[in-house]
């Protein structure tokens, strides 16, 4: 692609241009996306997070069971009446219990299921950073006289071996 070694003075500005164009495109996409949702959109969004009561884990939007159709109907009516998402969800939770919601609430004990992945991610990244930081220094394996004695003994027992044994990464 490009000759190695010498830094191409040309590629830097190209990257800047690319970054700017991308930022513009993403901003455009995001802005076009957020507007006031219509009744149909609100109902569809709610349908996607409500579980079909008689199915196993499918949303009301995806199921054609009679219970799902009933829930969709109620959601549509209440969205038309102007109730908020929360009110509609609360009404259904009041009928079916908290398991009607496909997204576990972020308050209470169910917050665990949201917090643990974040903690795990942070911990993993931190551990990785630590790993790199520790390993950045070249391996300071000092060869002690005991090591030499062991090698001498092994070589005496087994005869000369082509490759070194002690230090260095093995397969």
């Amino acid at each position, binding site marked *: 692609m490009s000759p190695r070694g010498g830094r191409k003075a040309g590629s830097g500005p190209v*990257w800047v241009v690319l970054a700017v164009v*991308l930022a513009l*495109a*993403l901003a455009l996409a995001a802005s076009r996306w957020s507007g006031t949702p219509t009744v149909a959109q609100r109902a569809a969004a709610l349908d*996607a997070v409500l579980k079909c009561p*008689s199915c196993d884990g*499918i*949303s009301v939007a995806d199921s054609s069971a009679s219970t799902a159709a009933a829930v969709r109907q109620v959601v549509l009516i209440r969205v038309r009446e102007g109730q908020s998402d929360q009110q509609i969800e609360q009404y259904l939770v009041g009928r079916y219990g908290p398991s009607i919601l496909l*997204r576990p609430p972020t308050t209470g004990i169910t917050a665990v299921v949201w917090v643990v992945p974040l903690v795990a991610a942070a911990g993993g990244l931190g551990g990785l950073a630590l790993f790199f930081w520790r390993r950045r220094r070249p391996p300071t394996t000092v060869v002690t006289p005991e090591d030499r004695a062991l090698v001498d003994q092994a070589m005496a027992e087994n005869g000369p071996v082509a490759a070194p044994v002690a230090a260095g990464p093995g397969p």
Partner: protein
Amino acid sequence: MNATLGHTGVLLGLVASIVGAAVIATGLVRKRPATVRAGQVYAALILLGAVVATVAMQRALITHDFSIAFVAENNSRSTPLLYTITGMWSALSGSILLWGLVLSGYITAMVWRFRRQAGDPLVGWATLVTYAVSAFFFALMAGPADPFQTVSGHVPANGLGPNVLLQDNPLVAFHPPLLYLGLVGFTVPFAFAIASLVTGRIGEGWQVATRRWTLLAWGFLTVGVLLGAWWSYQVLGWGGFWGWDPVENASVLPWLCATAYLHSVMVQERRGLLRVWNLSLVISTFSLTILGTFLTRSGVITSVHAFSDSDIGGLLLGFFGVVVVTGVGLIAWRGDRLRSPGGIDSPLSREGAFLLNNLLFVLLAVIVLLGTVFPLLYEALEHQQVTVGAPYFDALTLPIGLTLLVLMAIGPALPWRKATTGTLADRLLVPAGVGVLVAVVSVIAGVRGLGAVLAFCLGGFAAASNVRQLVLAARGAHRHGIGAWRGLVGRANGGMVVHIGVVVIAVALAAATSLGHRGEVTLRPGTTTMIEGQQITFQKLTTVSSPVRTATEALVLVNGHGPYRPAVSQYGANTEPVGTPAIDSNVWHDVYLTVDSLPASSGGPVGIGVTVQPLVSWLWVGGGILVLGSLLAAVPGRRRRPTDPVSAPLPALADGNGRGRRRHDRVGPAVGPAVGPPPEPPPVPVAVDGAPEGSADERVPAGSS
């Protein structure tokens, strides 16, 4: 007669497993290689037992032998032949029989593959572990999950037939066996991992030897999961191609760990690092297959996929405990002493990319496991139910998926050991340009939603980067006179193709989930309407009935072609009517039709649901590319042992048929000069800037990694 034959087969498998394990154990303890080698023959006996039992079961099914309880419950005289044969794995005890059959096949293949090193304690320990696993599953079949249990009382004249949803689609003949070929296949790498830990011989390339097995099992599992998704998509009730159903999650957990392993094992081959980590991944993969088996069969989780609960839940959980304690315990005991002493020079290197890849895949596995198990935890504590459904998993896996797309783009362009940003910038300029172009085009085309555009952009970036690698490899192979096609096969190049397949799937997922729209129309017979950009014509309603299904079908034309037949179907007399969809599929989108409401009186209006989802067929195309890539990756490279350093020269082109390197991953007692750890490659020409652009790739064109 069938029952006797079946019981004989099962008992043969059980006894052979136990005796084989005992023989090998004796040989290992007494340090007698001859005894250890003698333990090999029992693999053939286990296979024989499994085959006999399977033949007996199939014979019973095909001849409708209702004296066997399993046949009476899962087969009937009117069941077509295909579904009679697949009935073997349509219910619990038969599925254990399939597991045993596949396991015995893998054990035999493993013993055959390593027959020349059979006296080696490491191979002996590995065989012992596989015999132990086999003994467990055959013991299940001999006792609690007996497939050949006879009916008590008089023999019924006709059976109940298989579960209705398993009689409707020929994919039932492919999805479960492929899934088992994948899940069970992880037993062999696990056995070698345990053997490595027990003997302490962790670094001789045993991991390399079993990498092919892991790739094979991973490939089967991938195909199995993809076929399951396709099947789900066609059959309503399971809601789309992926529903984060607990059983689906259980099958993907081992897949995540295995994918992480397939990447990090390359770091071990090249640099000798991450040995204990790789062992942990292999042990986790196998443990998760057992956990998945438990979840599916214990009744702890309700799911359409789940088999009926039974007593074997407790036994499977106990086995899971044994596996975990053994594996993790061995690592606790030995792991620290076996860690490799080397280091990673720089985070900005291919090793660094692989490490980040592993972190992300393990994080995905943690999220999926947590989400699957949390409802049980909640119910134990609060005595109420909570659902962890698709919105949760989608929200958390989306950022990780996008990051993985970026990694897929950057990783192949990163050299080993160390890279400078300059090198990376030069290599990735064109792919980045492609990505930005895709973003701009999609915004212009009217795509709304930050997530979708970002997914397309990063997908373009990753695809372009991987294509670039393939082009370079092909060019390098051509320049070396060994044929440009060599640039497409081998582990690294196959891996690039697999990545391209993943990108296609990711793009399809992004498009289908965020750009789909749904509408409902109510139509009288013979009328047409436009909805969601499609012209829908409802012709009329018909009723169809077959032995298994009674349905009211709506004949619908989409944009003039059809007719498609979405229906409300009832399978059997005593089940809830379910909607069965019809799908009009083309390259750009799928039109998914459902019958939402039937008229109160004949001739009345019918409610039809119309969902238009873009790029769904790209999911299956991407899956095909993925499978093609794994096949390409399995083609052995002609170059050298994977443990050789990057700068090692290619074997002379005139060394015969060029296939001589097929044995490059043979391990075991060295027969010549010691095959010790290779000397460190001379650092001067390659260290600082990473491999010179193109040259390292070109020097090892086939299967370069």
